[in-house]
């Protein structure tokens, strides 16, 4: 970083509003050449809007973008790429049926002959240690490998600024380390990196500077190396952070949920099949299930809550009763409540009121039905109770679920299930896309329910969350579940290997092999 040079990118007083929201309010910050700069903020803080304007997908209402000190108008992404701005999105835009090479060719602005392109791709890959066979079909690649295609695609343009939007949410810990090596090498060569994330330890490990956004405004620009994760989190949410209160050394009760040899064919073309899954959860225990997205987490939740019914009654045993052949309603009546990962359209109906959403899962357990007719008063009272107990920000029981922010809706859904006093609660990605404040509330509620004697299964991609919550941990990979490990015996290294698909082998020797394979 040479202080005499103008900043690579400077954003001055940028504002952008959408109907009803001021997404960016006079945002200013600068990225120096060769700097890894973090944009840190909760969901809805305005990070995505800001980078969309830098990448030319949207235009600011006011303010200026300067590139190497010169004011520029980035009219569209092609203009951004011409300036030397590359972007790797959180969700990939790849054609499953095409090869790596074909996918990259499709994304190029300039027409380059295939052979020439392939040579260039191999060059880039070699420079940055990104191994990938250009002729592999995308559908056969892991998520980490797919991300590598997007990175290669961006690097082919010799970017001088690379924007990475939440790049690690789909990676195993080992893959994250490899990605960071690539990014550090790029920075050393002078490429600036704008790194968007809310994962604080990653920002501490990787970034030189962090700009913190809250409610569309810049609240601070800091050096993450000298801050603690906690101080950054507090700046991000604008309030003090509460620790999870978890009584140490609790005793567990009897087995509330036993899963024995649960197998299930995959749903549809891309569904993951479950293979011989076995585990048990005792009263008061929190059982964590880690894994990279798309390894059967959703299928497991559906099989547990009866949305998909198998042939073996004994595969799911709830409080001593074999319920494997029962449907969702019957299982819920027995005390099994679940929270699926997708909030809109699965856990809740966006255009229904919160009271109607209470009817969706609570009607039978909470007496909201008398001879086929709904008792709307009971549903409204219960909804009011959820709203006040879990401090959900909503205009009332009549507000539509879709009008709530992600975090508030998640609090509502968690509250709806927890206040039904389930014997067993299965939750998937409980704090996915939820801000830190709401996540803390949800975590505490899960622990409190366990302390009160429920058996809880938490399925999550967030290892930090699982390590903080779980008493026992297992890893799901391609529809298989690893052996449960008591939380005290867990090593991150071992978890990472299990997430990558190495089952039951000694952790040390395959570590090297695994790295060699993946990189």
């Amino acid at each position: 970083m040479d202080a005499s040079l103008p900043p690579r990118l400077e954003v001055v007083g940028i504002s952008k509003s959408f109907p009803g929201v001021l997404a960016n309010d006079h945002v200013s910050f600068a990225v120096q050449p060769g700097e890894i700069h973090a944009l840190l903020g909760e969901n809805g803080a305005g990070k995505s809007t800001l980078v969309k304007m830098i990448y030319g997908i949207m235009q600011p209402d006011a303010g200026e973008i300067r590139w190497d000190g010169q004011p520029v108008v980035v009219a569209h992404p092609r203009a951004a790429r011409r300036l030397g701005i590359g972007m790797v999105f959180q969700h990939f835009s790849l054609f499953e049926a095409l090869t790596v090479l074909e996918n990259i060719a499709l994304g190029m602005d300039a027409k380059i002959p295939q052979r020439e392109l392939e040579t260039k791709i191999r060059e880039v890959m070699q420079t940055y240690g990104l191994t990938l066979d250009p002729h592999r079909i995308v559908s056969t690649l892991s998520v980490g490998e797919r991300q590598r295609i997007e990175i290669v695609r961006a690097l082919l343009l010799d970017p001088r600024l690379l924007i990475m939007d939440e790049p690690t949410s789909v990676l195993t810990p080992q893959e994250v380390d490899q990605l960071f090596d690539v990014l550090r090498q790029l920075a050393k060569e002078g490429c600036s990196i704008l790194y968007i994330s809310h994962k604080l330890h990653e920002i501490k490990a990787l970034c030189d500077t962090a700009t913190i956004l809250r409610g569309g405004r810049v609240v601070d620009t800091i050096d993450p190396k000298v801050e603690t994760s906690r101080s950054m989190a507090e700046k991000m949410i604008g309030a003090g952070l509460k620790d999870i209160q978890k009584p140490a050394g609790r005793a567990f009760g009897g087995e509330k949920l036993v899963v024995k040899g649960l197998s299930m064919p995959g749903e549809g073309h891309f569904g993951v099949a479950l293979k011989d899954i076995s585990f048990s959860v005792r009263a008061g225990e929190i059982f964590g299930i880690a894994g990279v997205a798309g390894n059967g987490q959703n299928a497991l939740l559906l099989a547990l809550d009866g949305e998909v019914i198998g042939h073996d009654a004994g595969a799911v045993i709830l409080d001593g009763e074999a319920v494997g052949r029962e449907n969702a309603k019957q299982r819920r009546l027995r005390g099994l409540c679940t929270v699926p990962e997708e909030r809109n359209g699965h856990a809740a109906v966006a255009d229904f009121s919160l009271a109607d959403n209470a009817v969706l899962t609570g009607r039978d357990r909470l007496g909201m039905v008398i001879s086929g007719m709904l008792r709307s008063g009971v549903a409204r009272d219960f909804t009011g109770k959820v709203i006040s107990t879990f401090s959900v920000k909503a205009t009332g029981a009549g507000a539509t679920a879709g009008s709530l922010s992600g975090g508030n809706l998640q609090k509502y859904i968690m509250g709806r299930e927890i206040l039904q006093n389930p014997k067993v609660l299965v939750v998937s990605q409980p704090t996915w896309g939820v801000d830190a404040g709401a996540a803390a509330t949800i975590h505490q509620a899960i622990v409190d329910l366990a302390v009160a004697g429920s058996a809880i299964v938490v399925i999550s991609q967030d290892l930090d969350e699982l390590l903080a919550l779980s008493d026992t941990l297992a890893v799901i990979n391609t529809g298989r579940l690893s052996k449960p490990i008591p939380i005290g015996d867990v090593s991150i290294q071992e978890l990472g290997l299990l997430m990558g698909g190495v089952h039951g082998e000694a952790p040390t020797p395959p570590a090297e092999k695994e790295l060699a394979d993946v990189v």
Partner: protein
Amino acid sequence: MKLKLEKRPEPSRLMLYASPVGAVIVTMIVGAIIFSIIGYDGLGAVYQVFIAPVATSYKWSDVAIKASPLILIGVGLAVGNRAAIWNIGAEGQYVVGALAGAGIGLLTQNATGPWILPLMILAGIIGGAIWGAIPAWLRTSFNVNETLSSLMLTYVAIHLMNYLVTGPWKDPTGFSFPQTPLVTADQTLPIIIPGTQIHLGVAITLVIAVVMWLLMTRSVFGFQIRVVGSAPQAARHGGFSHKQTVWLAFLLSGGMAGLAGIFEVCGPFSQISLGFPQNYGFTAIIVAFLGRLNPLGVILAGIVLAITYVGGDMAQSALQLPNASKGIFQAMMLFFLLASDILVRYRLRLVRRAPAAVSATVPERSAA
């Protein structure tokens, strides 16, 4: 300066109710223009089709009689459409319901007693429900698209009717006309308003519409229908079976179409002839949407469409408008309704500066 469609933060309730009214008004305006262009008295046509039946008090009874089957079928379709289950074959279910009831009628030609009419009505409901059960079965067992199967079964039903009416069920005393024998006194729906043609079926229709409204808004059944239509996955999560909902929707809408069919046999038609199918089953699709898939709205929409039926006939005699013209008006209504429905979720806005072009290779991402 250009017009831009902008998503509303919440669907507009005003537009939800204004758009059917707007659709009817735009239909009148565009209808007047079209018929003027092709050489008819356009304003006169609109007057005859939309206003005259209302302005002429002796036509009210005609409107009520035409509205009854439209409302009955429309309410059934509204329930299915709410669940995003598309029964396009109500016309066939209407015909088969009429045939099933008329079959009982043939068997009881020489019998007397108050039990005959209820039995025919029951047969009508079951007939329609069975015809509706076929697409439901195909959908739930083989995942056959119900839109296509229900539509095609309509033509099967009409051919079945043609066969029966020209063959085995032809009235032996009917001078070889292709029609069934007239219904007997015990097979006829009583007139409830003396001096008019308004029969008991009209009253039953209104009661059913109100009951269905109560069920849709207050019962678990209505909740199931709504949640299956809005978010099928959430419905599954809530313990509602999609297959069961498909069956319910088809049995209900089929049964109601069948009921409408037998009401016509025991009421205005008094028999089944080749001209028996009046397109009520298809027009009821318009009724269901114009009524916002709400049974009470369907009552109003049924009356509006019934007016166009009666008015179409009046325009035919007054202005020599072709019979197809009422179909044009009805179709325009659905078309304009669907078009204006975009304003429920979007609003029009004038923007000064042209929005930046978004490169096609980089799909836009959703905002955080």
